[in-house]
């Protein structure tokens, strides 16, 4: 949504909402899409076996513990999935808890690791475009894989080690954390009981799923139930859910997921909730941040909560919900010879308390099961973090730019006293972050929109005009009149916050994306202008050579528009094709033959 945050889109979304009385769309169970769904014009029937599976998952791994080898990937399913040795190694270490935290019973957590260099995506074009309409934070992760883990550790006297320890791990490029955890809850317990046929059946189920198109209500049959969900689009009004369960009577048959990616912010931030606003700043600015937690579940939840608290902005630096000393980036990230990198790490191994002692911001989370409220209001000094049993809290010397918002803290505290349900607390906190981020980003959106050239400067016979450059001081000047003070009552050094933000990877990522969209829009407008021209009349004044040149250029434009899926109006491309065809027809026959050949991309 960040990329679309200008006023016009906001109006557009509101209009769409208004027609539905701003209501959530509820679907009754009978209104299910057939598993194949209408293809949206996409040639779904052309998909090969495992294509559908690959749209959701890279593979499923089983990681066990071998007394001689240590952790090992026991099974990879489907068997043809490729993982490099390095990737397998990462999966092995990241799928097990790395501290003596116990974790008896079943635990779920997630990790993220770099994909090996030089990996080719065999499905390239097919997978590139289906998430075009997804919000930036829900797009496929290009350089990383996510691992979603269901770990079981139970006493078993029949085993030499005395314990059964195994993880079922879903490897995917999709950041749908809540969805994959729900999926694992359905598959993993069955798998631990019934072994490989269960995996085979689950994969077969998944390979029959519709592709994960944003905006459609998807029905996904798995293990005897149908999961129903909707992947949000970047056109949705942020903070609204489109899918609610209308009846609970069919809960044995269907599971409706109200969200596919949102974590419970309140639960995750509970141990440090006096500092949420400062944490928001630290994440926004891409500061080096480490979360030290007692278990992988807590570390990964907290890291994901941090990353998502600046939504709809995308957190552009690396983040590792669960990071171990075996990680291939361990040296790179912990070196003392350079300043700590702009990353967020979640760790559980006590060893990190020493290794990362020099990091500027450390969040220490206690055991979340102990429902003790964060008592310490004060930020702690880093030098106090020496021993393993340091108390929960935030350890930093950072001075926030914005003044502290006591209202939200009071509101949440009141909720705790009144035993307000966690979901309600979460909704309050989520809305708070959303408003804060939007107040911050709207002035930037507005300024960037002003970099777009005027409509009249677009001419069919000139190349598309360039965007104006982003000039920091010019932007700062706009803040006087149209700054965040329009939408936020928070006082403080907003200017300082912007200055710092403009230097951060998050700004860089946001601006690149915004710029790309605007350039594509210019190309599209240019293309539309071309279509409106009377090309026949134009070529009469030109030589044959120039006409051929025009045909080739138009063909280029057409392929570009199709390849990049430019946001052109309906029918524009067909119109352009007609233009091309009729120009070719006006040429001598021998030339016609050559030009009619399909363009080679």
């Amino acid at each position, binding site marked *: 949504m960040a990329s679309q945050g200008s006023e016009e889109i906001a109006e557009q979304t509101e209009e769409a909402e208004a027609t539905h009385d701003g209501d959530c769309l509820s679907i009754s169970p009978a209104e299910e899409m057939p598993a194949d769904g209408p293809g949206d014009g996409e040639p779904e029937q052309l998909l090969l076996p495992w294509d559908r599976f690959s749209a959701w998952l890279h593979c499923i791994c089983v990681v066990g513990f071998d007394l001689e080898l240590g952790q090992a990937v026991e099974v990879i399913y489907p068997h043809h999935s490729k993982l490099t040795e390095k990737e397998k190694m990462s999966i092995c270490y990241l799928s097990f808890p790395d501290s003596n935290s116990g974790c008896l019973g079943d635990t779920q957590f997630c990790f993220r690791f770099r994909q090996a260099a030089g990996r080719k995506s065999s499905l390239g074009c097919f997978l590139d475009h289906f998430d075009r*309409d997804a919000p930036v934070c829900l797009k496929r992760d290009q350089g990383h894989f996510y691992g979603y883990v269901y770990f079981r550790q139970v006493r078993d006297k029949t085993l030499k080690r005395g314990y059964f320890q195994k993880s079922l791990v879903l490897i995917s490029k999709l950041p749908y954390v809540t969805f994959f955890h729900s999926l694992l809850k359905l598959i993993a317990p069955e798998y631990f009981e019934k072994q490989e046929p269960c995996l085979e059946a689950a994969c077969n189920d998944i390979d029959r799923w519709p592709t994960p198109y944003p905006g459609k209500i998807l029905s996904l049959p798995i293990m005897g139930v149908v999961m129903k969900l909707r992947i949000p689009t970047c*056109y949705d009004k942020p903070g609204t859910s489109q899918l609610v369960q209308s009846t609970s009577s069919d809960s044995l048959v269907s599971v409706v997921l109200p969200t596919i990616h949102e974590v419970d912010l309140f639960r995750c931030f509970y141990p440090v909730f006096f500092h949420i606003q400062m944490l928001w700043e630290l994440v926004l600015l891409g500061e080096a941040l480490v979360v030290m937690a007692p278990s992988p579940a807590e570390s990964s939840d907290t890291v994901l909560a941090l990353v998502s608290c600046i939504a709809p902005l995308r957190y552009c630096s690396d983040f590792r919900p669960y990071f171990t000393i075996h990680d291939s980036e361990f040296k790179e990230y912990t070196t003392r010879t350079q300043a700590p990198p702009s990353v967020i790490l979640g760790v559980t191994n006590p060893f990190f308390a020493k290794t990362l002692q020099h990091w500027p911001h450390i969040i220490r989370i206690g055991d979340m099961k102990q429902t003790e409220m964060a008592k310490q209001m004060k930020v702690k000094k880093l030098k106090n973090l020496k021993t393993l049993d340091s108390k929960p809290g935030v350890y930093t010397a950072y001075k926030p730019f914005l003044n502290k918002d006591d209202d939200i803290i009071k509101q949440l505290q009141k909720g705790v006293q009144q035993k307000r349900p966690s979901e309600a607390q979460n909704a309050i906190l989520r809305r708070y972050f959303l408003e804060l981020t939007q107040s911050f980003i709207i002035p930037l959106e507005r300024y960037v929109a002003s970099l777009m050239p005027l409509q009249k400067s677009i001419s069919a016979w000139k190349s598309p005009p360039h965007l104006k450059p982003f000039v920091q001081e010019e932007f700062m000047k706009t803040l006087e009149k149209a700054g965040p003070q329009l939408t936020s009552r928070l006082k403080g050094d907003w200017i300082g916050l912007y200055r710092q933000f403009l230097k951060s990877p998050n700004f860089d990522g946001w601006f690149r994306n915004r710029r790309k969209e605007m350039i594509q829009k210019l190309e599209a407008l240019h293309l539309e202008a071309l279509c409106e021209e009377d090309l026949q009349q134009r070529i009469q004044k030109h030589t044959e050579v120039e006409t051929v040149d025009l045909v080739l250029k138009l063909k280029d434009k057409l392929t570009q528009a199709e390849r990049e899926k430019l946001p052109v*109006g309906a029918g524009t491309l067909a119109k352009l094709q007609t233009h091309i065809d009729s120009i070719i027809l006006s040429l001598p026959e021998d030339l016609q033959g050559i030009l009619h050949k399909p363009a080679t991309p």
Partner: protein
Amino acid sequence: MKKASGISSEPSAFIMSVLPPVRKDRIISQLPKCFSKGAALHTEDGFHAKVKTACQEQRTGTVGFKISKVIVVGDLAVGKTCLINRFCKDVFDKNYKATIGVDFEMERFEVLGVPFSLQLWDTAGQERFKCIASTYYRGAQAIIIVFDLTDVASLHHTRQWLEDAMKENDPTNVLLFLVGTKKDLISPAQYSANVQDAINVAQEMKAEYWAVSSLSGENVKEFFFRVASLTFEANVLAELEKSNSRRIGDVVKISNTTSNLYATSKKKQPNCCQ
């Protein structure tokens, strides 16, 4: 002076979730007849009067339960997948392809003007997948037990299939259908010689008997319409009863978690077939 808008005019996301109407050939306005009066779930001529009135008065809106899970079980290669494919896709593939784990189809109907869907879970007949089958059996409202009319052993195995499927379900809420397939492969004389055996089995398990051919399509549509109609009828009746008792008690009990629901249904494990 108009600024070039940076925004594309995309269709609203909301339109996409509006469903296409139910296919014309999936509209049921009368209760289809049973196949054999000797082994039918009931032999009434039409839908239950209460159901008809409820649908007319659109009181099913409060029912809010318009989806049923149907599982299809039976021996290896008796033609479970073919049966479903004939009905759902109107195709017949002569090549045999074993089902891995489970296949799934969703079929939408309109019964007495009310939208109604069947989730069809087509389970694997292979021994290898038997261990996982129970996962897929849960919460079924109709069980279709399939055997091969040309293979007597497959008829005998239906009792075992039923027993396995019932372990996960509440016998008072499940409708049973016993279906003989490959009718085209058997001569009329052979058929009439064997039919009584099948009817006996059906009576014993309180199932409705059907004989079909997925190759020719004989009785396939009729059979699934019957399944849809009877599950729909049972559904509406059950819901009407529930809302009646609610009205009397004047208290609506809300069960708070799905896991509780599951726990109670598990306790009432049936033992009818043992």
